């Protein structure tokens, strides 16, 4: 009975999740008929997958005036005149570089979620054909943006949830309540990701990082599916930072064998070794982290774009299918895609963590096995070498 109730709860949650996303979008679109052409939908989606400087829930038009519901977030920028801080409400929801904010003797404008500092004398930002500002410079933007807000939120949530789980172990060996949900996840990461990929000897040392990465990505991915419209793991700066963490960890924990295999590959003719070293170095320092960061970024961004595009069917196909047809089609498609996105949220977190563990495992692997040589003295590739080729 309890199990049924739990399942029902989960299903309801999923349902609410999917349809509130829908509701959010449609209320926005229906009430002010601003976004109803394909170009406008495109622009809206592009705007959504970018970071934002305020927490915007929805907008509506009443009495011909556009109203926004949400709250502003602090803007912290490093300009030519030093640090400048102000609330994002100073831009009055402008994202086209029209509203100029004066702080510390600098003028700031916001254009497509980016803050520019206007050059002296300029009153409006202007762009050339390649979308480079001609009379303004990008500033170093340390603002508490929506993504940073999400990171802080999830960081706090993780700290509270897992430290409470840790506290539970002081009194009892089997956790109760929410801890019972978290424990198998921790065990999963430890036993299915860290242990088999890094090896029994050294997995413990890296499990903390892997657990943090896994839950951070997974929860943020799931948060991205809520109607709050977070897109943290779809920010390339965030995935780049994560990938670089992995890069730093496996580069600095690599043992002698690892560097030997990169810089002076044993078992191949001497003349080929420098060539291989270049390839291996590029693989270890650039390709591996790049594949990590692009995979996560692209998957999550694509998911957001697909979900929003399917929701947009509601009004882009209104003319050809009618209101009921377009809404129904959009509802069904976006419902199932959202379900798939729930799976993708987990999958991407798993893949990122798994590959991180694999890279670390390759760096710390102990080659106590000598390569087997066949009758002609050539190396016989073993499973590990083959596995390396596929990554």
């Amino acid at each position: 009975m309890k199990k049924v109730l739990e399942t029902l709860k989960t299903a309801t949650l999923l349902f609410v999740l999917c349809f509130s996303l829908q509701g959010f979008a449609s209320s926005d679109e229906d009430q002010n008929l601003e976004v109803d052409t394909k170009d406008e939908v495109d622009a809206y989606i592009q705007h959504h997958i970018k970071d934002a400087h305020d927490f915007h829930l929805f907008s509506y038009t009443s009495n011909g005036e556009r109203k926004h519901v949400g709250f502003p977030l602090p803007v912290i920028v490093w300009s030519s005149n030093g640090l400048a801080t102000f609330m994002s409400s100073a831009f009055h929801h402008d994202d086209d570089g029209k509203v100029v904010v004066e702080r510390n003797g600098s003028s700031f404008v916001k254009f497509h979620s980016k803050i520019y500092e206007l050059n002296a004398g300029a009153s409006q930002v202007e762009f050339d054909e390649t979308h480079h500002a001609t009379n303004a410079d990008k500033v170093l933007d340390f603002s508490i943006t929506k993504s940073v807000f999400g990171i802080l939120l999830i960081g706090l949530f993780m700290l509270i949830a897992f430290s409470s789980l840790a506290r539970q172990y002081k009194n009892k060996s089997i956790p109760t309540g929410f801890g019972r949900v978290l424990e198998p996840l921790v065990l999963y990461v430890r036993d299915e990701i860290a242990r088999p990929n890094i090896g029994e000897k050294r997995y413990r040392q890296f499990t903390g990082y892997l657990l943090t990465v896994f839950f951070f990505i997974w929860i943020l991915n799931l948060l991205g599916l809520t109607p709050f419209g977070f897109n943290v793991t779809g920010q390339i700066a965030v995935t780049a930072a994560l990938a670089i963490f992995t890069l730093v960890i496996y580069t600095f924990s690599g043992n002698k064998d690892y560097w030997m295999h990169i810089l002076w590959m044993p078992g191949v003719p001497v003349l080929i070794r420098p060539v291989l070293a270049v390839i291996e170095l590029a693989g270890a320092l650039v390709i591996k982290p790049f594949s990590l960061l692009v995979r996560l970024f692209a998957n999550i961004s694509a998911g957001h774009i697909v979900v929003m595009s399917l929701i947009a069917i509601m009004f882009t196909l209104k003319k050809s299918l009618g209101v009921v047809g377009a809404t129904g089609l959009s509802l069904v498609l976006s419902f199932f895609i959202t379900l798939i996105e729930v799976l993708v949220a987990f999958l991407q977190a798993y893949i990122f963590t798994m590959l991180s563990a694999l890279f670390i495992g390759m760096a710390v692997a102990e080659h106590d096995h000598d390569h087997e040589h066949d009758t002609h003295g050539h190396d016989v590739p073993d499973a590990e070498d083959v596995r390396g080729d596929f990554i």
Partner: protein
Amino acid sequence: MEILINDFSPGLFVVMTILFLGLIFLMVKFAWKPILSSLDERESGIKDALAAAEKARTDMQNLQADNEKMLQEARAERESMLKEAREIKEKMISDSKELAKVEGDKMLKQAQVAIESEKKAAVADIKNQVAELSVAIAEKVIKEELSNSEKQLKLVDSLLSDLKLN
């Protein structure tokens, strides 16, 4: 690629790096370390308990085997004791039979010897008595015969006549 680079926000990157570094350290200190060590402890506890249970089981088995062995031994011992007792009984019976036979034979022999000697004595006694009796009778007869002279002369005559015949 152009879009990727354009979308990359160095500020967000820096903020994310700092926050994530902090998150890793905090999580490791306050969550993962205690959780993982508790899990390890629990797992090793379970392992130990399982090993102890296994050991108890084998001990029990050994004990049972020992018991079985002891029972077997006791049974064998009882068997052998019974057998021995039976043998002893039989031996005793046969021994006493032997003894009785020997003793009886001996007594029989003694009795026979005694009977023989008694018989001999009796026969001798009878012989003596017969002799005495015959002498007494003969005396009386002679006395009777020779009580008068006529008879004595007659006897002498008969004796003499016998002598003549010879």
